[in-house]
């Protein structure tokens, strides 16, 4: 599991870890806790190009169905196929095995509009 300090966050409760040509995206611990038990995750097809903050899929919990947004734009290079049979991984390890998708970032400047771990903590604490 990555250290939270390496991650950037959106106000929509997603995190991203940029590692050169690959950016891994997931939802935060706060988000999984608010959603409750996750029962289904719908992810985009590999090869899809997505704009920053656009809808990339759907997360369904026992309580509600929620849209999933991407914190940065890019081309989808991998999705977490393991979630199909084990969506609970998002609840167990939102920053680890519960990651959602990987993008090839198309605009590195976008990360400037995202929040640091400390800034996000403040929002989630409210």
């Amino acid at each position, binding site marked *: 599991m990555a250290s939270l300090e390496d991650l950037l966050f959106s106000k929509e409760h997603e995190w991203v870890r940029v590692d050169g040509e690959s950016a891994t995206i997931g939802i935060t611990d706060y988000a999984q806790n*608010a959603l409750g*038990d996750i*029962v*289904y995750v719908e992810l985009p097809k590999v090869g899809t190009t997505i704009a920053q903050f656009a809808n990339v899929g759907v997360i*369904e919990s*026992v*309580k*509600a169905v929620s849209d999933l947004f991407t914190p940065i734009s890019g081309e989808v290079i991998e999705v977490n196929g393991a979630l199909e049979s084990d*969506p*609970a991984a998002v609840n167990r390890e939102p920053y680890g095995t519960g990651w959602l998708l990987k993008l090839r970032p198309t605009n590195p400047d976008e990360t400037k509009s995202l929040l640091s771990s400390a800034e996000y903590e403040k929002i989630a604490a409210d």
Partner: protein
Amino acid sequence: MSEAGAIALIFESGQEGRANRYFEQGKPLENFLPRQLLRDELPLPDNSELDVVRHFTRLSQRTFGIDLGFYPLGSCTMKYNPRVNDAIATRPEFAELHPYTPDDLAQGALAVMYELERSLSSLFGMAAFSLNPSAGAHAELGALLIAKKYFKERGETSRDKVIVPDTAHGTNPASAAMCGFKVISMPSNERGRVSVAEIRKVVGADTAVCMMTNPNTLGLFEEEIAAIAAVVHEAGGLMYYDGANANAIMGYTRPGDMGFDLMHLNTHKTFTIPHGGGGAGHGPLGVAAHLVDYLPTPVVVREESNFHLDFDRPKSIGPLRSFWSNFAHAVRALAYLYANGSEGLKRVSQLAVLNANYLRVKIAEFLETPYPEICRHEFVASAQRLKKQNGVRALDLAKALLDYGYMAPTMYFPLLVPECLMIEPTETESKETLDAFAEALAKIVQRAHTDPQALFDAPVTTVVGRVDETRAARQPDLRWRP
């Protein structure tokens, strides 16, 4: 299942040859039905009539409904259904009428539909209603199909967006998406209302419809509704009124006067028709004058003292339902309208609002109520504080209420309120019932502080205990197999 008190599945009981066979001796089925419709095998259980009667009587004893207890399910308006409505609807003159009966032999039934249509139009300020849709969401779909056709005929096909506030009824976004519209979600302000400033931000030349519920799902009245409608109309869009909460406004205000072009009602909510088990509903669809031609067919029309069904409406979106929809519900709704009259209906809304506020103030003593002001027919409470302190969620409170013999309120809706309980007592409950419910909930909240585990284990007195909702959603197994 072999636990004490468990009921065997009907498919797992019975013995071969036990069923009554009315058709075997001398009257082969071929005499009644075409050969090609008959099957050689029909895997139905072989039970005697007595076994079947006992089975379903037992099941009926284990269900919960408004006839057994308080049912404060927000936005569902679970009020008492007067038996006289059923007595009238099941009269053979109505119940045994064949759907192909020619108009001139069904004048009484057509008069009922006509009277109901006129009464609803007057009560809600619409030019006309269609009684065709058989549920609220069904009428929403019909209304959006009307909007689509209306814009197509005007050459405004680029209008592809439907605006839905986060306080709207839950089916609205789904109906819009079903019709191929893009859904634009709009946040309410800190007072739980849609503001004119916010609507200005999202409305544009691509706006088709703005769908609102008023009072909204927080139980709050949108005071700026006329100004909001003006903004949408200025941009060329249509306003849709979701009638889920119509029980709050009868005789006080009308969607037509608020500026709505389309609306639906749930007669099974507002006009007392048994519902809640997924049974037959009834969702009349109302329109303003400029949209009357698009209503589903057929429409009941009156010519002097004669009524007939008009199918010849070239602009219509066509029928949404076979035959005359759930006609018996139209009879029940009209019976309720006649029994109350316009003053009585006003009193219904008055008492529904009074009961909701009485309960809101009582519950605010021990649970958060995020919008602490006079509400309409329902209100929201939140278990957010309890969850932080003791890990007890809205779900656990709801389950614990079952042990006290109450139906749980609507949970986790609207989504903007965390750990939400949405409570609608309706006008048909007494002060004693409301007091007892508030007292039970107070005890449960008290227990959350002293013994939260007891609430995680609830319910313990019901036939079926705490169900594993997560597993049911992750591994749905809906069909019985031998």
